[in-house]
């Protein structure tokens, strides 16, 4: 029953002064550098699928190594700080590979690499020159399903064959962290994105602001030293995915907050029947409900990010699926309601609300949908 214990008091929900400064700085940065026109420009460009200048700027501010130890070029902060960046990125749909590289890839390396491997990889990640992507799904795409890539060993060399599906930022990453089956075991390999035998095909995605790729491996040779050998690969993968789940929840809160703000501003300005539409209860009450839902979602996401940062693994096992299931549904509902609240204009390509709807729908399905996470929660709570 210890899994039932309430959140430990070590977790604080109030931002420190430093965290508040970080939040303001990042919010301003994305407001300037990830304005809607820029987001659209990047998302409609053929390549590279992200905004490299903005990415470098994030690196310059030390925001790509928040969870990376200082010894490996990071800032040695925590996931609580990274969560602040992710929320603001979600608010603007910032076109940078934070989820793939700073969360999924970094956590997989932190969990699975030897000290030497970490020392070789992570400084580049923190500097923004290495961009990681996690390739762990087969074509069926179930979370934690047997990966579609098989690794076979030949002396000090491994060969990878098969297909990894729905790889986030898979086409633009410099390195792929590949989960592969090796007999009955799972192994993680770090493979350059342009290694011989690797072919990467962009997926036609619903959410153009987050590129996905299908990555095929045909006899790709990987040296044994590029197999993450610091611990059990399954645990490292689990760590990466749990962090990914929490990151998505935080990002969803940012998107929901944006939706509420944008809709509220519109409801104050838009006049129909001689009145601002926000004076009609149909609009006002829906926005009030959205506010309530947003605040709850924010609580769930912050809680998960804080317990992750605090390393409270038992509580994280509850907090992560709680956050992912709850925030996904709030984001989807708010993004869809947003279209309705904006009315006809909200249904046009030129209006931004659809970008949030598509992000909401995609993140709801990514890394396990709400039902999946509730089932996890049920197991943990023995319900």
């Amino acid at each position, binding site marked *: 029953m210890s899994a039932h214990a309430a959140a430990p008091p070590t977790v604080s929900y109030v931002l420190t002064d430093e965290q508040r400064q970080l939040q303001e700085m990042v919010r301003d940065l994305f407001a300037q550098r990830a304005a809607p026109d820029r987001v659209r420009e990047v998302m409609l460009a053929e390549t590279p699928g992200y905004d490299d200048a903005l990415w470098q700027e994030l690196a310059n501010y030390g925001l790509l190594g928040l969870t990376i130890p200082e010894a490996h070029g990071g800032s040695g902060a925590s996931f609580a700080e990274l969560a602040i960046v992710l929320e603001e990125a979600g608010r603007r749909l910032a076109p940078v590979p934070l989820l793939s590289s700073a969360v999924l890839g970094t956590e997989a390396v932190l969990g699975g690499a030897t000290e030497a491997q970490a020392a070789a990889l992570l400084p580049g990640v923190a500097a923004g020159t290495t961009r990681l992507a996690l390739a762990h*799904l087969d074509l*069926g*795409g*179930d979370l934690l399903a047997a990966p579609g890539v098989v690794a076979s060993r030949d002396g000090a060399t491994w060969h990878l064959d098969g297909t990894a*599906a*729905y790889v986030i930022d898979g086409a633009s990453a410099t390195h792929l962290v590949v989960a592969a089956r090796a007999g009955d075991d799972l192994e993680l390999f770090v493979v350059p994105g342009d290694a011989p035998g690797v072919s990467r095909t962009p*997926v*036609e*995605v*619903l*959410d*153009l602001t987050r590129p*996905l790729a299908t990555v095929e491996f045909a006899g790709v040779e990987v040296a044994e030293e590029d197999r993450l050998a610091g611990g059990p690969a399954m645990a490292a993968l689990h760590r990466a995915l749990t962090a990914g789940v929490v990151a998505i929840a935080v990002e969803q809160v940012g998107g929901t907050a944006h939706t509420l703000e944008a809709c509220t501003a519109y409801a104050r*300005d*838009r*006049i*129909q*029947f*001689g*009145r601002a539409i926000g004076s*009609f209860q*149909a*609009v006002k009450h829906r926005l009030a409900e959205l506010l309530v839902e947003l605040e709850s979602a924010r609580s769930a996401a912050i809680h998960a990010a804080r317990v992750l940062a605090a390393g409270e693994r038992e509580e994280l096992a509850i907090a992560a699926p709680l956050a992912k299931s709850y925030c996904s549904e709030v984001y*989807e509902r708010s993004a*869809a309601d947003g*279209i*309705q609240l904006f*009315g*006809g*204009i*909200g*249904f*046009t*390509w*030129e209006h931004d609300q*659809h970008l949030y*709807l598509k992000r909401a*729908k*995609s993140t*709801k*399905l*990514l890394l396990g*949908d709400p*039902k999946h996470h509730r089932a996890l929660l049920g197991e943990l709570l023995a319900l």
Partner: protein
Amino acid sequence: MGVDERGLIVERIEALFASHPPADTDERSFWGAQFDHGLAWVQFPEGLGGSGVSPRWQAVVDQRINDAGGSTRNRINNVLGIGMGAGTIIAHGTDEHRARFLRPMFTMEEIWCQLFSEPGAGSDLAALSTSAVREDDHWIVNGQKVWTTLGHLAKWGLLVTRTDPDQPKHAGMTYFIVDMEADGVDVRPLYQITGEAEFNEVYFTDVVIGDELRVGEVGQGWGVAMTTLMNERVAIGGTVQPRESGAIGEAVQVWRERHGEDGDPVARDQLLQLWAAAEAMRLTTVRAKEAATSGTPGPEGSTAKLQWAELNKRITSFTVDLLGPEGLTYPGGYSFTRPDGSADVDGAPHKRFLRARANSIEGGTSEIMKNILGERVLGLPGEPRVDKDVPWREVPRS
């Protein structure tokens, strides 16, 4: 009386089929003959495509045409004319309008579009500001309309304008038929969240319309527009579909293909909830159709529109969820093209999911529909109005 009507209609169908075998006649010729036999809109007067009988016989006619291999696709492909414009012209047009416009509308020689909504006049249609100023025997029109289905294909448009800004908003409007090929009419594609441009924006710059194309009296445009809109709301969601068709049919298909009997019980229960709601709604259309003895669309039509819109949104969203990770994709990509025809929805569930978001906006938002149901059907009082009984030009707008 019903017996006489049935006899008349059956007789005319047989005469039509004898002279123009549906399967062997080109569409345009067949529709012309159908019009001439009084079978285009059976409730219309003789000579105007009708037979002066109850509109419920139209279903019999259309069924027979389809069974015989003929086409009734003109009702869909020229829906704004045949479904909405024709009734308006019969109710409010002149004899010249009726003689000039109805037949080529029905044969699809001339496509029609509707020019009501504006950027600043959506739910509050009566706030519209596109102006028409009279000069001698014609009018000069300036302004912008949006959400114009088929605007790029249309020959004629149903246009509501502001002709007297000093009257209260509902009193200063006038309704016209406008030639979409006239000078000063600029039709631009309006891209939607699906990546397609099913609608248009239409800009009017000093467009000249002869007074003979005015429909109804000067200042009576609101009443004429209401006739058009009532027809629209009946057309949306009010027709009887087969069980398990449309959005729920697609959801069932995805379920069977990807989940089936071993599928997640939670998703199955959600599917069955939607199935039950869709079927209950469908049975309501069956019941409403059976109950309808007159052809005058009333506020009951709003029930079907509201319910269909909300349910369609839920079902299409659920269907994408059923796709799992494939829900992350958009098969075919965002094309930025202009689809053929009107608002019919096809393609992958992903596109239908996005397209359905507009269901509760177009043809009257769900909020407006609830006002109508609450006030006209349930008899609840309206809200205090700040935009009535004052000149239009003094009412705040955005």
